[in-house]
């Protein structure tokens, strides 16, 4: 059984169809990448999977670990082990990073019937993960993402992923706005999370990130459909030639089977 099974997924926002029949399956231990031009539906797919309520699902089915993902609330999906690293992480003034992360971890523990962690047990764990991402301890007590630079925000997303240890992590354009040094640190953090029981879905526009996080499979999403899938070499071809050929073929194509 696949960890994530997307079948013929259609989603609309304000009456516009964005996803027009997406099919994808992802197994434990695998890293897949979804690439596509702007407006192809990449971020919509990521947000639908994280259960953002702005989108209306008009057809299709998604199974996550055998359960109906589309019936879950965002918090349920998170507690079942799904994590979305946001393209635009949200600033939350007034809540410290450490408090936020412990609240999140304890919400997940509670859902699973596990014991909640107090600050004494939690802080050493958090510090250890921060070291991995080369993050200064001052971020512990600062408000979530407030006055963080673009790179710091993305690193903070990966820190959250490292603390929450999801079964499936979706990285939504985590590379956008990062310089090469920050990109390497983030990639290193993600690679450290690779695990036989964890799957990672890397959503990106550019191939560069995939030099550092090498995927098992690459899928090309154009106009709400996956038009081609292949190995890591597919990403290199896209880097060379761009999406031009795919965009023209997508318009006339029938939904990928």
């Amino acid at each position, binding site marked *: 059984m696949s960890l994530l099974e997307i079948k013929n997924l259609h989603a609309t926002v304000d009456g516009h169809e964005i996803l027009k029949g997406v099919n994808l399956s992802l197994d434990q231990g695998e890293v897949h990448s979804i690439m596509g031009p702007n407006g192809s539906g990449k971020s919509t797919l990521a947000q639908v999977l994280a259960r953002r309520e702005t989108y209306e699902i008009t057809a299709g089915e998604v199974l996550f670990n055998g359960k109906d993902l589309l019936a879950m*609330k965002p918090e349920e999906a*998170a507690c079942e082990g799904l994590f979305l690293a946001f393209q635009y992480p949200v600033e*939350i003034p007034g809540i410290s990073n450490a408090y936020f992360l412990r609240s999140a971890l304890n919400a997940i523990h509670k859902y699973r019937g596990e014991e909640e962690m107090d600050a004494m047990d939690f802080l050493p764990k958090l510090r250890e993960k921060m070291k991995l991402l080369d993050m200064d301890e001052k971020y512990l007590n600062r408000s979530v993402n407030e006055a963080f630079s673009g790179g710091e925000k993305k690193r903070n997303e990966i820190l959250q992923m490292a603390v929450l240890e999801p079964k499936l992590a979706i990285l939504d354009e985590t590379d956008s706005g990062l310089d090469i040094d920050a990109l390497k640190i983030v990639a290193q953090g993600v690679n450290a999370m690779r695990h036989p029981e964890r799957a990672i879905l890397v959503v990106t526009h550019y191939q560069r990130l995939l030099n550092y996080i090498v995927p098992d499979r690459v899928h090309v999403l154009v106009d709400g459909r996956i038009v081609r899938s292949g190995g890591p070499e597919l990403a290199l071809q896209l880097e060379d030639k761009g999406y031009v050929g795919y965009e023209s073929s997508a318009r006339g194509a029938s939904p990928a089977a």
Partner: protein
Amino acid sequence: MREANLATATQALRNYEESFSGLETSAASHEPSWLRKLRQDGFARFGETGFPTVRDEDWRFTNLSAIAQTPFRLVRNGHRVPSLADVAPHRLAGAACELVFVDGRFMEALSSVGKLPEGVNVGSLAAEIATNPGVIEPHLGRYLNIQRDAFAALNSAFVEDGAFIHVPRSVVLESPIHLLFIATAHETPTVSHPRNLIVAGENSQATIVENYVSLGSGEKALCNTVTELVAGDHSVISHYMIEREDEKAFNVSTLRIQQGRAADVASHSVLVGGALVRNNVHPVLAGEGGECLINGLFVGRNRQHLDNYMLVEHASPHCGSRQFYNGILDGHAHGVFHGRIIVHKDAQKTDAKQTNRNLLLSDTAQIDTKPQLEIYADDVKCTHGATIGQIEENSLFYLRSRGIDEASARRLLLFAFASECLDRMKAGPARTYVENLIHQNLGHIADASRHQEQGL
């Protein structure tokens, strides 16, 4: 309808007159002449103006007809004295001393004056007037302007009791003084006019908490408080006003602060209770180099009306004032923030700042926010800003996507908004008390607003 309103308003006025002449007769034998004059001037002024209407610029957003048309009576006799168990939940853990007032009257049996540093005098204003009027006379009524405020005039007319606090020169009180005002249940509408006088000597430090609560459920009650706070040169004073009365309470309070040279005063207001609340804060920075923080949080739901009227007067050079008020409004609640700053001609190098931020949790909640700057000096810095917003869907989704359920996420975001105000309070028993109160309150609101959105 109009005629009926007029009739009830007339009856209400007649009640004040009866109460006043009753007080005149009973107090005539023992009260000092200066106090008699203070009361007579107050009542004469109230008689001239009556209650303000919405045509009065200072009351534009607050309709007082519910107060004007209710025939309130002073509670003269028959106080139902609450038990110690009744009072227990309202006590402030860690307070240096606690004065309890029931319907405006000091209750010694419920109060506790712990060990205070030498020379500190904390007790009932009525007792102090009776035994030591010379201490009271130089201050009482000297700072309050009864001409521009009918409620201040009315309070002065009925001055009898309240708290008197004197902290002598260079004395530091580390723990707060808790003034607990309890409105008990009555079968007819009642009014009380607590009057507090706080005199902080040069270089002294103290924290004073005024806390208004209701006990039992009865008819409407109006509490019309005036506090005169005299902050001596170089004193450091924190004042808290906590309003948590029930949904039948009207609460009008005026905090008049007179600041000496380099005095540092913080006024913290936390309004969560009451049907109609008017919170007047009026500091006058009279000495050079004074600093004033005017910090507030108001949380309204159902049909609560919470009006905050700030009047910050810069009367000397090199003073700073910072106003920060945050409002959270749900249901049909109506909030008002009126931030007036007057910079007098000689108050050069004034640095005055004002910020009012509001969260509206329902389509029917309302906020009126109004800055009013009057600047007569030419070398000053004055800034003001106001925002009105909702809980951001983005923030909510972000928290939920990390596993935090919706009600908890809302509670977290509301608390984060409120904590901007809490963070400005010094750590200690008073802040802890307020934090617990806010946690409790926002929990109810988060649950209620979620149900509303789901149409439950």
